[in-house]
């Protein structure tokens, strides 16, 4: 298939072509990446109009079930919803299990929904690039709400927060020591906190947790002049509070649009994207550099054997990279 077929397929909202384009973006083959770059560039003018929402929370908080209820509600209101989820790959076998859709039974069958889980494949930087480009593809295919789901581990929240308009942190009301478990960093990223599973016997607990999180948030300096992150409660089962969260997201959007902060946020994200690409490209060039490639095994071995110190070895490798730069790069 030609690049043009992918572009036309995505713009024609063809599900299979959207899926195939995402595969190209995720591919480790050079040729695929070149095509993906051309496709994403051509689609870029058609993207940017969607509401981009990041959703995080610890495993077990009910992210998938929440997205099922939230997504269905949006579809009912006439929105077209794309859900992108990154699942961790096993560091041992390299394989992964992507089971998010088992809990998105109804949403996964909706005509106006698109759910694509992706294996993390080990490198976190890679995930960021791929997800940003996938957002562009989904927007060009006419999805007007993009949900990026992330597991609440490692640096992934920061990465996702740097590519969405609204970052929602799901929490559970529990035994009263909620605050110990959360990293302060996650709270700083949140545009809203929602206490999930606020149903049945858990309602009282959820209300208590809400107060505690409110206090915790009030201690932080808000990142926006016009928005202080609210603490909400919801239940993906009874659907209580789900619509309220959507209204909160729209309200946030309206306020930040009016103050110009949304535009600022997006241009800052464009810069983040550029820097991420530069960093990724530098690392890639380093490993593909012929001088480095030739000497790397020797130098690695020498450090392992204790013959060369790590500092010296790093210096040597970078020197080799600088030395061979012109040869290797100006050809391609």
């Amino acid at each position, binding site marked *: 298939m030609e690049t043009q077929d992918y572009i036309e397929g995505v713009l024609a909202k063809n599900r*299979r072509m959207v*899926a195939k384009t995402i595969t190209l973006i995720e591919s480790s083959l050079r040729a695929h990446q070149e095509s993906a770059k051309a496709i994403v560039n051509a689609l870029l003018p058609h993207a940017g109009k969607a509401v981009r929402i990041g959703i995080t929370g610890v495993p077990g908080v009910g992210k998938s079930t929440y997205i099922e209820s939230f997504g269905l509600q949006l579809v009912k209101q006439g929105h077209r919803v794309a859900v992108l989820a990154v699942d961790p790959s*096993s560091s041992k076998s*390299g*394989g*992964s299990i*992507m089971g998010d859709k088992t809990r998105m039974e109804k949403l*996964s*069958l909706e005509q106006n929904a698109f759910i694509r889980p992706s294996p993390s494949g080990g490198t976190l930087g890679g995930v960021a690039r791929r997800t940003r480009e996938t957002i562009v593809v989904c927007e060009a295919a006419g999805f007007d709400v993009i949900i990026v789901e992330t597991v609440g581990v490692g640096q992934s929240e920061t990465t996702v927060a740097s590519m969405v308009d609204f970052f929602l942190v799901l929490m559970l009301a529990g035994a009263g020591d909620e605050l110990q478990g959360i990293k302060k960093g996650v709270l700083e990223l949140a545009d809203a906190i929602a206490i999930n599973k606020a149903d049945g016997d858990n309602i009282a607990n959820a209300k208590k947790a809400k107060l505690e999180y409110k206090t915790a948030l009030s201690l932080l300096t808000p990142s926006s002049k016009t928005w202080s992150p609210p603490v909400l409660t919801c239940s993906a089962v009874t659907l209580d509070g789900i619509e309220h969260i959507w209204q909160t997201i729209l309200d946030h959007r309206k306020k930040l649009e009016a103050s110009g902060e949304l535009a600022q946020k997006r241009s800052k994200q464009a810069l983040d994207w550029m820097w991420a690409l530069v960093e990724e490209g530098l690392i890639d060039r380093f490993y593909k550099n012929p001088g480095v490639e030739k000497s790397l095994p020797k130098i690695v071995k020498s450090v392992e054997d204790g013959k060369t110190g790590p500092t010296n070895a790093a210096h040597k490798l970078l020197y080799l990279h600088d030395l061979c730069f012109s040869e290797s790069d100006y050809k391609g």
Partner: protein
Amino acid sequence: MLIKQRIEHFIKREGRRPRILVSTVGRKSHDQDTRLLASLFAETGFDVDISPLHQTPRGTARMAIENDVHIICFLSTETDHIKLVSQLVKVLRAENAENIRIVIGGAIPRSDYDSLTDAGVDQILNSVQIDTAVLNRILDLFE
């Protein structure tokens, strides 16, 4: 060649790991079997998608296309698996996705093997325990 090496070769050729959708079709589906198979494939180095329970052939095809998998592993607990497979193949063809391979598992009588192959099944598993031979035959489908 070891399965691990074959998967490495697959990645070099395709740019990603072999991706398989484990889908349970029919009303009497067993979640346990789905999960067992899924983890066996993942431990071997596949990227594995799991579908919700009680899938229809149409739902399975849609998920396979959306997630862009190479293989559908179809677990049937019904007696009308031949009909289900034919429907699945039909939907895949209609969507230009007939290159997705189909592996079927479950309680399948020997007498159905030929009809299933005619209907478009590439590989039949006779139990949920997959061994090296089965994995090799599945990887053979791509060479």
